[in-house]
């Protein structure tokens, strides 16, 4: 049995401890905002924050999470107004939107933990997250806008 916190609420998982956090979130707890894209840490669609660190839920066995604090896209901001979310909406970043929960979680951690960001800094971190629709130029612009707004 594993106890952990998701978006400030205590949760418990009682099954195979090798189960990736991704499927615990999506199938067992109903946090479907966190997406599956590859299952092998190659696309970033499943990015969540574990104890504040952006992490791939698809390769994180739930058994390693005893006592961990997990934040998903649903819990990033109670009002949905994290500077990154606001910038995303203002610049109409999304196309299909499927990758964007992962992009936003990755970007939110980057923005929250940085004093300033160069294009290279942004590319280096955000290259972990794939977008098949090709929203990269707007993601770059939105991250810069969020940095200014925060």
């Amino acid at each position, binding site marked *: 049995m594993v106890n952990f916190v998701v978006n400030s609420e205590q949760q418990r998982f009682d099954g*195979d401890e090798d189960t990736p956090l991704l499927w615990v979130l*999506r*199938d067992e707890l109903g946090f479907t905002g966190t997406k599956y894209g590859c299952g*092998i840490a*190659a*696309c970033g669609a499943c990015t969540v924050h574990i104890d504040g660190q952006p992490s791939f839920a698809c390769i994180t066995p739930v058994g390693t999470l005893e006592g961990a604090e997990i934040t998903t896209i649903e819990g990033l901001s109670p009002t949905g107004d994290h500077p990154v979310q606001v910038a995303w909406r203002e610049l109409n970043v999304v196309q299909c939107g499927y990758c964007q929960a992962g992009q936003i979680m990755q970007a939110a951690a980057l923005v929250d933990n940085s004093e300033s960001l160069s*294009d290279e800094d942004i590319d280096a971190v955000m290259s972990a997250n794939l977008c098949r629709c090709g929203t990269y130029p*707007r993601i770059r612009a939105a991250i810069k806008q969020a940095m200014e707004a925060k």
Partner: protein
Amino acid sequence: MRAAQITNVSRRSLLGGIGAGAFVLAVGLPSTGRAQEEEPGFGPDAMPNGWRDDPSTFIAIAPDGTVTVTCHRSEMGQGVRTSIAMVIADELGADWDKVRVAQAPGNEEKYGNQDTDGSRSLRHFFMPMRRAGAAARVMLEQAAASRWGVPVSEVSADRHTVTHAGSGRTLGYGELAEAARDLEVPERDSLVLKDPSAFRYIGTDRVGLVDNSGITTGKATYGIDVRRDGMLYAVVARPPVYGGRVKSYDDSAALAIEGVEKVVKIDPVEFPTEFAPLGGIAVIARNTYLAIQGRNALTVEWESGPNAGYDSETYRETLSQAVSSASGTVIREQGDFDKAFAGAAQVVEAEYYIPHLAQAPMEPPAAVVEIRDGLVEAWACTQAPQVTRLRLAERLGLPAEAVTVNVTLLGGGFGRKSKPDFVLEAGILSQAMGGTPVKLTWTREDDIQHGYYHTVSVERMSAGLDATGKTMAWRHRTAAPTIGSIFAPDPTQKLPFELGMGLLNMPLAIENIRAENPAAPAHVRIGWYRSVSNIPHAFAIQSFAAELAHAAGRDQKDYLLELIGPPRRVTPTVQGDVWNYGEDPDLYLIDTGRMAAVVEAAAEGIEWGREMTQGRGLGIAGHYSFLSYVAVAAEAEVVDGAVTVPRVSIAIDCGAHVNPDRIRSQMEGAVIMGLGQALMTEVSFAEGRAQQENFDGYLIPRMENAPKRIDVHLVGGDATYGRPLGGVGEPGLPPVVPAITNAVFAASGKRIRRLPIADQLRS
């Protein structure tokens, strides 16, 4: 991206099923002025179930004034839910803040055609949706006029309010909704549409995407996100080779896993497989992880079938052979190619290879189906909800009326989700579980290994230049398996719709032209992939145009403009294109003036002709597809054989710009997707199996690959909205690849004739 006639035949019989709504008068019929029994005409009239413009079908107004627009086209990132709402809101005179969007289930009798493909949602539904909005506005005006007892000519509706000019009295839309609903829908011919100068939303960037909030907070629902009470989760082990079958299997280890509920064999169908599941062994479990674990524990022996020997490297040579002699059907003949070629001062020949691709939408195919009391309900990320409904009903042995297909958001489509095989799998499994809701998920490995692949092709180009460097003779031989191979047993010739994707209708003014199409059998499932056959055709034609410029010692852009020739408007049938994207050849002509204009715009955007440093170069390409004109100019840098593309300029003329921000975003996305096809993206086959499994082997661009600068130029624009609309979702992609490879040539002197570039330039 239209399913050839073959698929339309059975669906057309549905035309008889159109029912008139309670107060529908002259609306709801599939065409203006054309009797229903007549052969369908062009555009939306030619689509299965045509179009509708009945306001009650698309617009609902609540007592509090909230306007709910029902979008019957699938949202997959092109922004159609926002665009359709903009169009209706403008004609309705609605306040954007009070507009909501609902999604229609699959029901073409009610909504008209719902196949969201072929870049035609606005092309076909801009006018019907304008009329629906305008009709609802008139009904609101009539309701207010009769409440006040004044002539309707004295009232006007705008900004969610109807006003009486004389007295200044006003009523809100919400207050009038009920009375308006009971009125007769005005005659279509009586409607006065707004003058475009009065548009508040159409043609502007004023409104944000209707799904912005849901997507940025994780609340938006995709097919893979649907949850039902008591739902089980499934994955399927499919034959590794197309056409393979299960010989034997052992599921004891799978069933021993706690949480694995059942193992079900899914039977394949005989060729052609159309939209049927590939068959295989399904594992149904309490969550997705357990289903995957169960699948891993299966022992399956496969019978590989006729495609076991398919090897894409060998097949490239087979195709190369096919185009090396005059063995193909002549598909276009103009002037006398042989004579002009024989008399040429200089001859240029080149062969281009374009590999298989997988659409790989970020959301893999996924669907939920449940069955209760003989009624089937599906939730799916589908581009084709009506086709899904029909095929699901057929496979489950039920009438179509018993099947509801709810359309979720699509996490990308790119043509993959036009095929409902995955929804059928979910239906079969729910049925096997006695109707329990089952979510069927394709893992990424499933998506890349068992796809409906973009065709593989070899294009052989030959040209003769005269002493001044002018191209006098042009021959294009194309060999590629056809999408028709999933609809009919063993066709080997490209279908008219494939040839009409940029090959027959290329906008070049050359005197002597021949095009030939040798046979090419399919060995994998071939399917639509964004832009479809325009991809190989644009790559070959626009690379070759640049090669001819080089041979003639000319500037690439100048030479391309010369090939395009003076402004003229050509009827596509004159060039042998009988398809014309299903549109009227007298309405949509090949307009070389518009083609030249986007080439100029793209060139200007990248500052064509500027001095380049060592290892850098510019390339350009233009292509006409989906009735829109697009040109791309790219800057490439080649260092130690590694290619980067720092800057791209892309120009599109698609007629009027209904939702300019979404045109720009589609062009940005097309540049990135095309960049991938140029540099890295490929599915190869050995022993009949796809050699890539996931995003570690099937490479698509990451942010670090994306150009630092992409400038989008919207050209033309037609502020009168008088010119028919072109497509937007697909036409951006085809010219991107040749623009980049032409830039690579300028940067490195190395001509790319085989995609992707991968490590071809590394020594």
